[in-house]
């Protein structure tokens, strides 16, 4: 049985003057999903997130959060969302604890003290909880933003570049936290870090020029990557006859020479043809044979080429 639908985005359109910032985006996110929002700068990710969280109204289309339509029942929908906006805005003159207290009050959290203590522990803010936010490092500020997004234990989390500016340890902490929360929530996170999408997300969409280009699992996306299932071979003597034989196979689209002793075998159907290739290499001195999975960044570049300058 499919898990509960928590975010339903249908045909969102938003113009800024003559510019169509978001152009008919539709997708759904269910409980347990971590959806990666990928795209170059200016692709429309932040605009789409702002419409999902109710900060701006779409020119067309609808957003429903946990069954509440954002246009008609905005407060009910917003109660169910935890939102970390781009650059983790906060009130810098407040202490971490004071700020979280304000968020808890605005969200009418029943037991604010317990909720604050819980998110302070979850996000590792104990050491700085009495410090003013302006005095914190970028990493801590982002964790404060994450803490405020989690304080009411929302069903839906919208995170705009949650690990931007964090050091590797902090990144790992936040990514671990997202993975831990994923089971019981629907999470949408935008990121420029493709490794992160691969590690944390079980679904990913690529947006470019306001349009949704692809919506798939990370595995599905990798299958579309230009180098997916390309076999990289390095042999002692890559004679022309060997390359010709491989090139004549029905499953092979082309063989690309790579330096003195190597070549790449590109499959015609994107499938894994390593078992068919290995017998053809018998009797050769093989240095290495590597089946490439494909890379997110190659797919990203190939799909969004020319958009981000």
């Amino acid at each position, binding site marked *: 049985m499919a898990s509960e639908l928590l975010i339903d985005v249908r045909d969102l359109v938003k113009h800024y003057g003559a510019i169509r910032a978001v152009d008919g985006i539709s997708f759904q996110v269910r409980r347990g999903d971590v959806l990666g929002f990928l795209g170059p700068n200016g692709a429309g990710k932040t605009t789409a997130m702002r419409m999902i969280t109710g*900060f701006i109204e779409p020119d067309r289309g609808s957003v429903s959060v946990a069954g509440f339509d954002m246009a008609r029942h905005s407060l009910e929908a917003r109660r169910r969302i935890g939102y970390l906006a781009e650059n983790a805005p906060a009130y810098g003159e407040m202490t971490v604890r004071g700020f979280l207290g304000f968020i808890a009050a605005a969200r009418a959290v029943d037991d604010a003290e317990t909720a604050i203590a819980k998110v302070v522990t979850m996000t590792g803010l104990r050491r700085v909880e009495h410090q003013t936010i302006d005095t914190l490092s970028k990493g801590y500020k982002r964790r404060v933003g994450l803490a405020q997004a989690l304080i009411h234990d929302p069903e839906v989390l919208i995170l705009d570049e949650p690990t931007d500016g964090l050091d590797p340890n902090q990144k790992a902490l936040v990514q671990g936290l997202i993975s831990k929360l994923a089971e019981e929530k629907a999470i949408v996170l935008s990121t420029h870090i493709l490794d992160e999408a691969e590690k944390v997300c079980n679904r990913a969409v690529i947006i470019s020029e306001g349009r949704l280009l692809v919506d798939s699992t990370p595995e599905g996306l990798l299958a579309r990557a230009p180098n997916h299932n390309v076999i990289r071979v390095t042999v002692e003597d890559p004679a022309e006859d060997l390359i010709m034989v491989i090139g004549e196979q029905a499953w092979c689209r082309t063989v690309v020479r790579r330096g003195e002793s190597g070549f790449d075998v590109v499959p015609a159907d994107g499938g894994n043809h390593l078992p068919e290739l290995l017998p053809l290499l018998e009797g050769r001195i093989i240095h290495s044979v590597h089946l490439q999975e494909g890379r997110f960044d190659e797919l990203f570049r190939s799909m969004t080429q020319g958009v981000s300058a």
Partner: protein
Amino acid sequence: MSRFTGFDAVFRREFQGYFSSPLGYIFIVIFLVASGYLTVSRDFGRFLELRQASLDPFFSAIPWIFVVLVPAVAMRLWSEERKTGAVELLLTLPVTLPGAYLGKFIAGWSFLGFSLLLTTPVAFQAERLGNPDWGVIATGYFGCLLAAGAYLAIGMAFSAATRSQVVAFILGVAGCVLFLLIGLPQTQQVIGSIFGGYVEQVAASLSVVDHFDSLTRGLVQLGTLFFFAAFTLGWLAAGMLVLDRTKAS
């Protein structure tokens, strides 16, 4: 759930904010020094020289002090939020725009009211000089509070329109000065001579000072109360409209 959801939380945060930073205290000190100076100065109020049990010198100074100091209180209310992006945080919480806007307005107004309260020793000084009319003093203070609210609403609307506190302050002062100057007899004469008597009357009816003066004379008229209510609510509505349209820019 109401149209003003979130008002309490925003009000508390903003009001406490005035006392958790040096800015609030600096404002109070400048306000007390300026109002005290203009009240007792030999060049302006001559409160001590006149030796009258009246706060007229003090009330005459207040609109001039407010045109500068109230926009200073108002300038950061929204422009700072827009500059830091905190407006996105605030307006994606389950708070309504009127709830957030009025929460900030009432907090700023309460702070101005508190600052006015600190000037009451001047009223007790008047009692030492004779037998003041406490009713007139009370309506005068009421007028100060209403004028502060009206100016604050103007300043907030300009704060909502820009990300720059400096621009918000300059526009706020300009707006407040405009509604101060159109009440002066000299300005009304000029308006009357250029546009005729009807426009002069309309301009006079929009003057904060005219309505304020009637309160400092002890006259609490329905028209005056209606003017301040309509003027303040009008600017608040305009500010909300502007904020709603510009918040994401």
